[in-house]
């Protein structure tokens, strides 16, 4: 009996060790490279809908003399397109999930950032810098459910993101507030800032499918050939009227020599 119990304990320990091994980083077999790029808006100057915040005077006071608009299509100088999630599509060796949380802030009665990436298993920390109460409500289709009231000067709260999806978060108190959290199973993602730039580091060498997603403009995919120790550039252009839905990778033509590239039509 004792032998049986020892065997069970040993088997359990072995299982735990193997789980640990599975989640430790695996060095890229062919080395790694970096993908950098720029996402550009090409088209007429976008106009976003007016947000009327008068229902909450604390929000209204933040915009006295201004006419706030929803930050859905944010374009900077030279067409720099912000809030575009760029990530790699495919299967990758598992890498450790960061122990630091991703932070979703509430500031000026908007979410900041509007779009962010996170890992499955990572913690989301929600903070409130506003002089008003918020309600943080996830519209999950995969099990990342939360619906929390967060008071003025309230402590940040944390939620573990347990399943991969593009999670939309809204505020029940302020219907104009929306954020998107891409919960991914790999670390290869980036979100463009006001300059439209993105960087994805430590990408396994080889052909990679790079996806760019915007909440209004949809998704584009390009193939790149990442070379170990080198930086590969891939740019995206979003234009109204352009078809942006993702297409299967096998429909893309990848130049034999090249870094890239085919924009879907």
């Amino acid at each position, binding site marked *: 009996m004792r032998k049986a*119990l020892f065997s069970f304990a040993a088997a359990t320990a072995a299982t735990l060790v193997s789980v640990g091994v599975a989640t430790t980083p695996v060095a890229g077999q062919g080395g790694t490279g970096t993908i950098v790029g720029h996402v550009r808006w090409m088209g007429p100057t976008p106009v976003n809908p007016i947000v009327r915040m008068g229902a909450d005077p604390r929000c209204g006071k933040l915009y006295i003399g201004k006419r706030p608009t929803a930050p859905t299509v944010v374009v900077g100088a030279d067409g720099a397109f912000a809030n575009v999630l760029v990530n790699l599509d495919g299967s990758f060796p598992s890498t450790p999930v960061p122990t630091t949380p991703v932070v979703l802030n509430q500031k000026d009665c908007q979410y900041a950032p509007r779009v962010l990436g996170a890992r499955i298993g990572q913690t989301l920390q929600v903070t409130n810098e506003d002089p008003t109460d918020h309600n943080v409500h996830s519209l999950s289709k995969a099990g990342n459910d939360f619906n929390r*009231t967060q008071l003025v000067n309230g402590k940040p709260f944390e939620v573990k993101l347990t399943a991969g999806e593009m999670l939309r978060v809204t505020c029940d108190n302020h219907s104009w507030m929306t954020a998107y959290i891409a919960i991914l199973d790999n670390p290869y993602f980036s979100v463009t800032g006001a300059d439209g730039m993105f960087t994805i580091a430590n990408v396994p060498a080889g052909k990679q499918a790079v996806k760019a997603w915007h909440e209004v403009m949809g998704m584009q995919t390009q193939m790149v050939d990442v070379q170990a120790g080198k930086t590969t550039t891939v740019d995206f252009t979003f234009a109204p009227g352009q078809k942006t839905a993702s297409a299967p990778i096998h429909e893309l033509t990848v130049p034999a020599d090249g870094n890239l590239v085919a924009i879907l039509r």
Partner: protein
Amino acid sequence: MRIFHWFFAVTLAAFLGVAVTAQQGPGGTTDTAAAPPCDLPNPPANKTVATDTTGPTTPSPKGYVKDVMNYMMMTSAAGVWNAVATVTDQTGVHEIRPKNDEEWNRVIGAATELAEVPNLLMIPGRKRCVGGEIPAAFKTDFARKAREVTEAANIALIAAKKHDVDALAEAGERIDVACDECHERYQLLDDDPEENNNKVWGTWKPKAGSKSKPAVPNSTAAAAPAAPKKG
């Protein structure tokens, strides 16, 4: 041997407990929806069917001001505001306008509701979630502000009936200003003396030590309607 059994069972239970707790995460058991701001205001249902001789003969409010705001005022105002807008989507930048009679009729419906809802706010007995009923000394001022919403909405209504996009957009701005004017004086924020300074408190009282003051009736009753600040 028996001791070993117990030791093993306790260890296993502790391990599973830790694992389950970790799965739930810090927010796993404490999620709550937004708390309702007030107790239900509704009086008990009157089971007697209203006839010529029974039932109420005067207007009888059934919801708080906040309920009227959230479920009637905001939805109808959105119906007016959203009828004329500029948006960007996958196909370009678009001017949103009512395109046919059906869409114009929807705007007419929203504007009609928006013009009438302020009348509901003035029914005697209508309470605010925070602060209770508008005090008698402020009712004239409150009625003036409510009426301004009605008048602005009426302009939207007329514009919608004429299918006049520009006038509808202009009315939308006046509605926005009218809403803000009223909120600045009558919308109390719970437990916030600073925010409620110079507002009409009614039954609301700040915490001891607050330097905030309630609005003074005479100054508001005599004040001329505020000029629109926007638009």
